[in-house]
C-alpha cells in the first residue's frame, strides 16, 4: 500500500486518540469538580463535550468515506468497524462525564452527605480501565483487553454496595434524598463508564484477534 492511503488510515487513528484524550480529560475534570467541589471545572466539562460530539461525527465520516472509496478488507475492515464503535463508546463516556459534572454542580450547593470514598475508588478503577483500553488500542495488545474486562465486576460490586448504603441513608433521613439520589446518579454514571471501557476493550480484542468476545460471561468473572 502506498503512503497516501496509509495516511488516511493514520488520520482515523489519530482522531480516535484525540477523542480519547479529550474524553479522559473531561472525565477527570468532572471527578475533580465533584471531589474538590469546584463549579468552574464542571462548566468546562459541559463546554468541552460538544467538541467530543463533533469528533464522533467526524470519525464516522472518515470511516464511511474510507470504506466506500477503498473497500478495505481484513484488518483494515475491522479497523473501520471498531473505530466507529470505539468513537461511539467514547462519546457515551463523555456524556456520562457531563452527567457527573451536572450532578456535581448540584451537590456542591449542599454540604457533603458523607465523605467521598467509594465513588472516587470506583472512578479511579473506571478511569484506569478507560486509559488501559486506549493503551491496548494503541499498542495492539489484546491480552490487556481481556484483563480490563475482568475489572468491570469490581466496579459493579462497589456500585451495588453504594446503592444499598445510600438507600439506607434515604430511609433514615428524608432530608438527604436529593443528595443521595445525585450520588446514586454519579455512581451509576461511573458504572456506565466502566461498561463502555469494557466495550472498547472488546472492540480492541476483535480488531487484533478477529474474534468477537462480547457477552462472554466467563471473561467477566475475574476481579
Amino acid at each position, binding site marked *: 500500500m502506498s503512503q497516501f492511503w496509509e495516511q488516511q488510515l493514520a488520520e482515523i487513528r489519530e482522531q480516535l486518540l484525540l477523542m480519547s484524550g*479529550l474524553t479522559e480529560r473531561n472525565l477527570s475534570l468532572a471527578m475533580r469538580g465533584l*471531589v474538590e467541589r469546584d463549579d468552574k471545572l464542571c462548566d468546562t466539562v459541559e463546554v468541552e463535550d460538544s467538541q467530543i460530539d463533533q469528533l464522533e461525527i467526524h470519525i464516522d465520516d472518515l470511516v464511511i468515506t474510507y470504506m466506500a472509496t477503498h*473497500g478495505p478488507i481484513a484488518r483494515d475492515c475491522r479497523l473501520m468497524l471498531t473505530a466507529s464503535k470505539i468513537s461511539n463508546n467514547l462519546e457515551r463516556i463523555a456524556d456520562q462525564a457531563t452527567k457527573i459534572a451536572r450532578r456535581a454542580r448540584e451537590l456542591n450547593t449542599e454540604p457533603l452527605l458523607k465523605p467521598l470514598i467509594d465513588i472516587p475508588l470506583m472512578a479511579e478503577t473506571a478511569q484506569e480501565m478507560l486509559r488501559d483500553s*486506549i493503551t491496548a488500542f494503541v499498542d495492539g495488545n489484546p491480552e490487556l483487553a481481556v484483563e480490563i474486562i475482568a475489572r468491570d465486576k469490581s466496579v459493579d460490586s462497589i456500585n451495588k454496595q453504594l446503592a444499598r448504603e445510600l438507600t439506607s441513608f434515604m430511609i433514615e433521613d428524608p432530608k438527604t434524598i436529593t443528595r443521595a439520589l445525585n450520588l446514586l446518579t454519579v455512581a451509576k454514571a461511573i458504572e456506565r463508564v466502566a461498561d463502555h471501557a469494557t466495550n472498547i476493550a472488546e472492540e480492541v480484542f476483535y480488531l487484533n484477534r478477529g474474534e468477537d468476545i462480547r457477552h462472554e460471561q466467563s471473561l467477566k468473572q475475574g476481579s
Partner: protein
Amino acid sequence: MNSYATEPRMKPPETAPMPQIAAAVESDDQTQPTMIEVEKLDFYYGKSQALHDVSIKIPANKVTAFIGPSGCGKSTLLRCFNRMNDLVDVARIGNGQIRIHGVDIHHSDVDVIALRRQVGMVFQKSNPFPKSIYENITYGLQIQGITDRKILDEVVEKSLRGAALWDEVKDRLHTSGLGLSGGQQQRLCIARAIAVEPSIILMDEPCSALDPIATSKVEELIQQLKGKFTIVIVTHNMQQAGRCSDQTAFFYLGKLIEFAKTEKIFTNPAQKQTEDYITGRFG
C-alpha cells in the same frame, strides 16, 4: 484520593481547536479553475449516437474519473479531448463544443498536432515503441525537430523520474522498451507522455492489463502527478476510481448521469442509477 487527577495520555491543549469537519460536499466544484469544458456535446459513430447532450467541467490539476458500463461513451468522450476520434472515418461531432483552455478544439484554427502535444494520452494496452527506452521518451521531442543531445538527456531523466521509473531503468536506457515488465511498460508510456509537457493527461483504463502490484504503483504515480497535470482516467474498476480520483463522473448509454466529488458519489450518490451501478446491481 487524587489519582483521578492524573494527566490523560494525550495532552490536548486547554482550548482544543474544533477539529476540521469535512467541508459540505459540493456537486461540481465551482470554485476550481476549469481545464476542460464540454458543453451540450452530441457525438456520432456513423448513424448511431454515442454521446447525448453531455455537459461537464473538468477541474484543473485534479484527477477526474469516468465510470460506467461498457458502451456508455466514457472512452468516446475521453478520445474526443485529444481528437483521436478523428482517426475513425465514421466518427463525427454533432452539436456542442469542447473547450480546452477556453478554445474550441474543433475550430478550424486549431492545429490538431499542437492540441495533441498539450493533451497527452496513455492507452489501455501499453504500447511502448519497439525502440530503446531512451528513444521512446525522446520520440515526442524528435518529431518536433529537437535534436540537441543535452536537452534530450535532461528530458529523459526528468520524465523517468516523474514516472517513478528512473531508478529501475537508468542503467539500461538503450535497451528495448519491450524488455520491461507490463507495469514498467505502462509507466514508460506515462513517462513518454509527460516528456512533451502536456497540461492534461488522458488515461484510458491504464491498469486493466496489469497485476495488482503494478496497478498500485501506477495509482501511486497518478497521485504524484496530479499536482502538475490535469488527469482524466477512464476505469472499469470501481475501487480504482474511489482510490485515485477527486471527482467522478458516471455515464450511462451516452449520457452523463452524475458528476460530483468522489466521496459523495461513493457514500451517497444523488441518482439511483449511479447507486445501482456502483453497488454492482447492474452493469
